[in-house]
């Protein structure tokens, strides 16, 4: 039998270190045999329950194992949970098994010592297959072992198990753990969990109320999950008035016909409590009538006349008085029945103090949630505003400086996005491709803008409406061209991984890094444009041309060149905006179209010819749109509709935009 011993040593060596350490001491032969008896005996004691394997009845067996204090108990429980506990049919003894050579042959392993005690055909063995309910219970029992574990990760796992399925029994273990816990994070977590569980399982009402109060303003989902069941209610209908001093925790009395309890719901409660006869609905009445047609008449009324509600009622009453059908409750009877009963809503939690405390805490949580949501909304609005700013700033430059409406601006945005996409086809590294794409998109759309200015717009100065239409022609041609080249399906423009994810401040306030990046990009562009316009020779000339083109020309400024460069600059910025927008939206040929009206609105609302105006317009529109979405979150289409209506009305008040130029030049 020498090889058996060698194998046993090997098995011990292969066991998980924790187990080995724990069992190390108990492997002395004498103790081992005693232990074997004890754990096996325990299992045998609960053999029937274990074999029955029902979630309802299994609890004593698990509890016995968990509280036995036997070193092997944890291993047995774990294996049981993982469906690795087997039972020998012949004598009902429990074993672990390991596959052996040969068909269907397995090694039997003693559940206490971990020694291989034989090799058998698995036909003689039954695998215990606890259902998920039982596995949950076993998991709960295992928690106490985990919480006592030396490994912090194991303890964290144990806490997580309790968080998932807190039970009254865990509270004691948890409290013991808190006292011994050395890891501060885990201690805090356990402490919070302990308070949370005290809400449901606390020994005294005071302790529970204290725990409830301690969570004021805590926005965690778990807190709300623990508090809401406390405020669960049930409804009851009683005859007569509501009692002066109700026995139990009365939440409120409901009035039939109120928002909380509709008239028909109230009557349905009466009906289901057998306090009133069922009402007659139209279809039941109709089928009752149809079932009693006699010689083309119902209750003496010709069928052809039964096309009004009144005639049907009369026919039904006639039938009822003849005893053919059961009388139905009339409206007056329904009212009387509702009048003579009271509808009460009771808290399921008997203690009024606890429900009151829970309501107070939930109220404060609502408040905290609302302020967090407000902050989140502000972030959203800010990011939307920066997108609008990016999309509109190029337009603002061309419109403001040249008085030219470029309907193809949206297509320049699209071009920028496609440039980004094409670059990614050649440069696989997303970070590098982004670094390449930004200037390249600028260059491509700058060139396209210059070409458009030279070929089309130059011929149409002082004919703004025709410029609008001609650039629209360019816009549909470019859109179709993009469709022909890239197809109609959306192309991805993937952000580098460091832009994945979100910057989150708590459960509610978070903002994706892409949006942060766009915000930063918008700021950079604002600075860039201000710098170019206010600090460079080009900017000086641009401003001169904006204010008085003839005078500027007379001063020796090449206005034609300035117009060309301005248009190129505006278009180039659109290209960069396109790359930015493409990062979070799908790149399609219609990408730009979705932004063009909003961009125009931004420019018009902000006031033409002023960068700060565009910024103000973008902020106003972004915040306003998010505000409407917040009021009516289900409907973003409605938000856009109302936003446009708002803009139309806004222009009534400030026809020249937020930042309006004054003076003779501005008055048309």
């Amino acid at each position, binding site marked *: 039998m020498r090889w058996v011993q060698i194998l046993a040593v090997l098995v011990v060596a292969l066991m998980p270190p924790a187990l080995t350490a724990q069992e190390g001491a108990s492997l002395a032969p004498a103790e081992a045999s005693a232990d074997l008896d004890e754990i096996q005996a325990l299992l045998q004691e609960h053999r029937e329950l274990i074999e029955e394997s029902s979630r309802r009845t299994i609890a004593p067996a698990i509890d016995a194992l968990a509280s036995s204090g036997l070193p092997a108990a944890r291993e047995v429980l774990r294996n049981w949970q993982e469906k690795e506990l087997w039972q020998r049919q012949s004598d009902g003894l429990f074993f672990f098994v390991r596959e052996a050579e040969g068909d269907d042959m397995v090694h039997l392993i003693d559940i206490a010592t971990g020694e291989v005690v034989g090799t058998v055909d698995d036909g003689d063995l039954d695998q215990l297959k606890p259902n998920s309910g039982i596995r949950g219970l076993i998991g709960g029992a295992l928690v106490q072992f985990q919480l006592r574990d030396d490994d912090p990760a194991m303890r964290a796992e144990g806490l997580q198990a309790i968080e998932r399925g807190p039970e009254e029994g865990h509270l004691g273990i948890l409290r013991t753990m808190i006292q011994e816990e050395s890891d501060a994070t885990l201690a805090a977590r356990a402490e919070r969990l302990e308070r949370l569980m005290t809400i449901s399982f606390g020994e005294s009402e005071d302790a529970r109320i204290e725990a409830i109060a301690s969570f004021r303003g805590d926005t965690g989902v778990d807190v709300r999950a623990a508090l809401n069941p406390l405020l669960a209610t049930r409804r009851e209908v009683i005859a007569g008035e509501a009692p002066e001093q109700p026995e139990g925790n009365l939440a409120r009395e409901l009035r039939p016909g109120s928002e909380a309890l509709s008239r028909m719901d109230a009557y349905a409660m009466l009906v289901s409590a057998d306090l009133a006869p069922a009402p007659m609905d139209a279809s039941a009445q109709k089928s009752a009538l149809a079932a009693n047609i006699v010689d083309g008449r119902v209750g003496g009324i010709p069928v052809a006349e039964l096309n009004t509600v009144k005639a049907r009622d009369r026919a039904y009453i006639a039938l009822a008085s003849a005893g053919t059908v059961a009388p139905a409750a009339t409206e007056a009877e329904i009212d009387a029945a509702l009048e003579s009963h009271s509808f009460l809503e009771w808290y399921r939690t008997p203690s009024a103090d606890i429900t009151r405390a829970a309501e107070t805490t939930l109220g404060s949580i609502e408040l905290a949630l609302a302020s967090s949501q407000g902050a989140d909304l502000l972030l959203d609005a800010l990011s939307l505003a920066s997108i609008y700013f990016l999309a509109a700033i190029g337009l603002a430059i061309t419109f403001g400086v040249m008085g030219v*409406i470029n309907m193809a601006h949206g297509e320049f945005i699209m071009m920028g996005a496609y440039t980004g996409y094409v670059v990614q086809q050649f440069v696989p590294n997303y970070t590098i491709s982004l670094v390449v794409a930004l200037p390249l998109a600028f260059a491509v759309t700058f060139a396209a803008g210059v070409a458009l200015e030279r070929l089309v717009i130059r011929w149409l100065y002082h004919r703004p409406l025709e410029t609008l239409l001609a650039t629209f*022609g360019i816009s549909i041609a470019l859109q179709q061209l993009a469709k022909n080249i890239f197809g109609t399906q959306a192309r991805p423009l993937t952000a580098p991984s460091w832009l994945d994810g979100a910057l989150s401040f708590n459960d509610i306030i978070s903002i994706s890094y892409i949006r942060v990046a766009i915000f930063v990009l918008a700021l950079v562009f604002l600075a860039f444009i201000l710098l170019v316009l206010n600090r460079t020779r080009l900017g000086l000339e641009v401003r001169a041309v904006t204010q008085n083109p003839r005078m500027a020309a007379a001063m020796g400024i090449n206005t034609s060149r300035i117009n060309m460069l301005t248009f190129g600059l505006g278009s180039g910025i659109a290209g960069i905006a396109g790359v930015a927008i493409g990062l979070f939206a799908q790149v399609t040929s219609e990408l730009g179209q979705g932004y063009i*009206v909003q961009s125009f609105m931004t420019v018009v609302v902000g006031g033409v010819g002023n960068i700060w105006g565009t910024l103000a317009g973008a902020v106003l529109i972004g915040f306003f749109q998010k505000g409407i979405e917040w009021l009516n979150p289900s409907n973003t289409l409605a938000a*856009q509709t109302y936003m446009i209506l708002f803009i139309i009305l806004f222009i009534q008040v400030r026809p020249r935009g937020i930042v309006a130029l004054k003076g003779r030049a501005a008055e048309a």
Partner: protein
Amino acid sequence: MGDTFLTRRRSTPIFLICLAVLVLVVTLMSEPAGTGAISTSFLKTLGKTLCLCLVAVAMDLVWGYTGILSLGHMAFFGLGGYMIGMWLMYERTRLIVAESLAGAPIPPTDGEIVSAIASQIFGVVGSSDFPLVWMFAHSLPLQLALVVAVPGLLALVFGWLAFRSRVTGVYLSILTQAMTLALSLYLFQNDSGLRGNNGLSGLQNIPGLSGLPQSVISLWFFWGSALALALGYIFAAWIVSGKFGSVIRGIRDDEARVRFLGYPVEGFKLFVFTVTGIIAGIAGALYYPQAGIINPAELAPIASIYLAVWVAIGGRGRLYGAVIGAAFVSLVSTWFTGGQAPDIDLGVYTIQWVDWWLILLGVSFVLVTILAPQGIGGLFDLATRRRRKTSTGPDAGSLRAPEAAE
């Protein structure tokens, strides 16, 4: 003075004669006449084209003559279609429902019929109640009145707000575009009461005429569209012929000057904007029963821009130009996008017109704008050697005051 506006403008009688000849020829070639040289579907296309010509006349009035580049007239067109579509859909569903309920042992109440119609119509948007906007849908005369009233009222209110605050030029264009966008986005919602993006369908089945073949109904609609175009054209010609025409062209060329002559410019603009909105609504009400379906995409801003493109290509500032532009571009567009146009094989690449038509349209539109602002209508000037020296449009325009540009 003995002359009337009809004799003074030779183009109007010529146009009417051409239209009459077209109607006669098409009628003789149609299926009901027995020859069938023109298929029913092409007859419908022709009828729809006449409606588009009518809305183009309205567009020319508001843009070519008054200088307001409205990018919203197709929204009025669509609203007219929706208004008539509501009755068509209600009445047809009512007939179907009445038929299906006729077999029931107990005759239905009015309430039951209405709710059955409602669940038929609004089942697709998960509702079974009639929204408030359908309150007149049961009545043809009321709904016909709405064809005029709804676009007219929208144009009146929007125009009043816009003109009152002196929004002009490109600003006004963008504002009208925004209005159109807002309207179409609103209609896209399921709870707008007009079936969201499903729109209204089955409009080609005229209630009470189920016994007639589509070929006959199409011919009737063709006649109706031709009549409407003729009346609309005469009305527009009458408006632009006299002093009113002088004033609105004055507004187009120099709004401030007209104001200093004492004319309430806003009132004139509002009048033209509203009247053309109504004409567009009527055109839409004739168009969509021939098209059979209307959905919010038809009201999208792009449609109104196409309308401007038609008028520009045809030649604005002359009514027949608008008609020619609308007919030419929409028929050519049908031809190209319908796949009838032959592909061009370049060896390396085959140009398929379905893909390239829009590019051709866009580019040719740009070329027309730059090189031939008079559009196709300008060809008639060459023929008659009539010289039109000045541009037809607000040039330096309302964006920059003339004195500021000095």
